[in-house]
């Protein structure tokens, strides 16, 4: 690298470049491994300069503000993970969980709204069977929740949310399930909560890398989430 290139990288490491020089520096960094190595090294030096500063400590509430902002951000931007994650293979879910789910269904501890309408009941029953099928499936695996208390059980592209202690949705509200595969969440069912354990089948398909979310929405559900997810799974 010539002197000018060195100066450009130093200015970049200090965040001191004017926009046109900054564009030139980026272009240089694109094509030169030597420039990237120089930036790596000089950036350690500028970061050391940061540690030399003494001043007030951050206010204690800043930590929570940052975490709140990250949570809120989840709704619109899912952290990228370019290296697609290998599914966490748990030894088959096991009879215990499947039995627990069946018992939950038998006791009527069920996430779906109980309707006096027979067709709705039939639909609920069909979904209950679908859920039981997923839970009892030999290839069922658990995907952890990043947020919320429970687990997502996946078999193929079918999935069931098993949620512990979800409070009943307030009057006029419902919990809505979403599948986020890419950037747009897709509706995947409603449930009222209020049960010790909610077993909620996720409607539609849950492909590799997709996440399952739950938000609190107006009764009847909406087409796009309007609140921050209260449940979010790891990528499937």
């Amino acid at each position: 690298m010539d002197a000018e290139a060195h100066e450009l990288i130093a200015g970049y490491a200090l965040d001191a470049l004017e926009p046109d020089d900054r564009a030139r520096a980026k272009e240089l960094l694109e094509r030169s491994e030597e420039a990237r190595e120089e930036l790596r090294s000089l950036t350690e030096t500028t970061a050391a300069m940061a540690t030399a500063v003494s001043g007030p400590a951050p206010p204690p509430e800043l930590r929570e503000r940052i975490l709140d902002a990250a949570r809120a951000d989840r709704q619109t931007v899912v952290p990228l993970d370019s290296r697609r994650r290998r599914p966490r293979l748990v030894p088959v879910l096991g009879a215990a969980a499947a039995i627990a789910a069946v018992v939950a269904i038998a006791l009527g501890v069920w996430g779906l709204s109980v309707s006096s309408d027979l067709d709705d009941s039939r639909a609920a029953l069909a979904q209950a069977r679908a859920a039981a099928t997923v839970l009892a499936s030999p290839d069922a695996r658990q995907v952890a929740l990043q947020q919320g208390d429970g687990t997502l059980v996946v078999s193929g592209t079918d999935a069931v949310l098993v949620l512990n202690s979800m409070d009943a949705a307030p009057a006029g509200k419902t919990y809505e399930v979403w599948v986020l595969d890419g950037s747009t969440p897709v509706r995947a069912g409603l449930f009222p909560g209020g049960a010790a354990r909610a077993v909620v089948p996720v409607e539609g398909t849950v492909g590799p890398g997709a996440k399952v979310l739950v938000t609190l929405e107006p009764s009847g559900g909406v087409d796009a989430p309007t609140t921050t997810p209260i449940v979010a799974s790891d990528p499937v």
Partner: protein
Amino acid sequence: MRQDPWALRRQRHLSDEALVALVARGDETALAELYDRVGRVAYGIAYRILRDERLAEDAVQEGFLAVWRSAATFRAERAKASTWVVTLVHRRAVDIVRREERRRAEPLEATTGQETADPAGSAEDEAWLGFERERVLTALAALPDAQREALELAYYGGYSQSEVAETLGVPLGTIKSRMFAGLARLRELLDESETERTWTPRLTS
């Protein structure tokens, strides 16, 4: 929502780089742990540039949000994770100071002695930070005045090279070479004191 205290304890043993990998998967606890490690220095540099608590908090928050969003693009061979985080926060602070047209760069010495106790920081962290601060201040003090001035105006003041040239009434080309020469010399001085020191810091365990 809730933070799992066990997850926090487990993550205390991870390297900064491993934490960033967890953040890339959307792990909030890892973000919290990263903040606990780097937040103090990040806030310090943001406050030094912005001289305003609210703006400094904004810069730190935006910087950590950038970490949250782009953690998957972090490559450990390109930088240490703590350096990367500080770099993102510094950049946000510089963006903000230029937007706000706040020009309050003063010599570094003017702020020493203002630190307040950080209730979250352990005595060990405090000791390491104090030691590291001393080491960097010593190296900065060993630079030729003109080089130190250029570096401080840029890095601590958020001034661009053209602004530094104008402020000092020195040609832009001179400022550019002073900044490189100063930074390269500072790197050498820090490398020397790094090899000299006997105390091993617990930065990432």
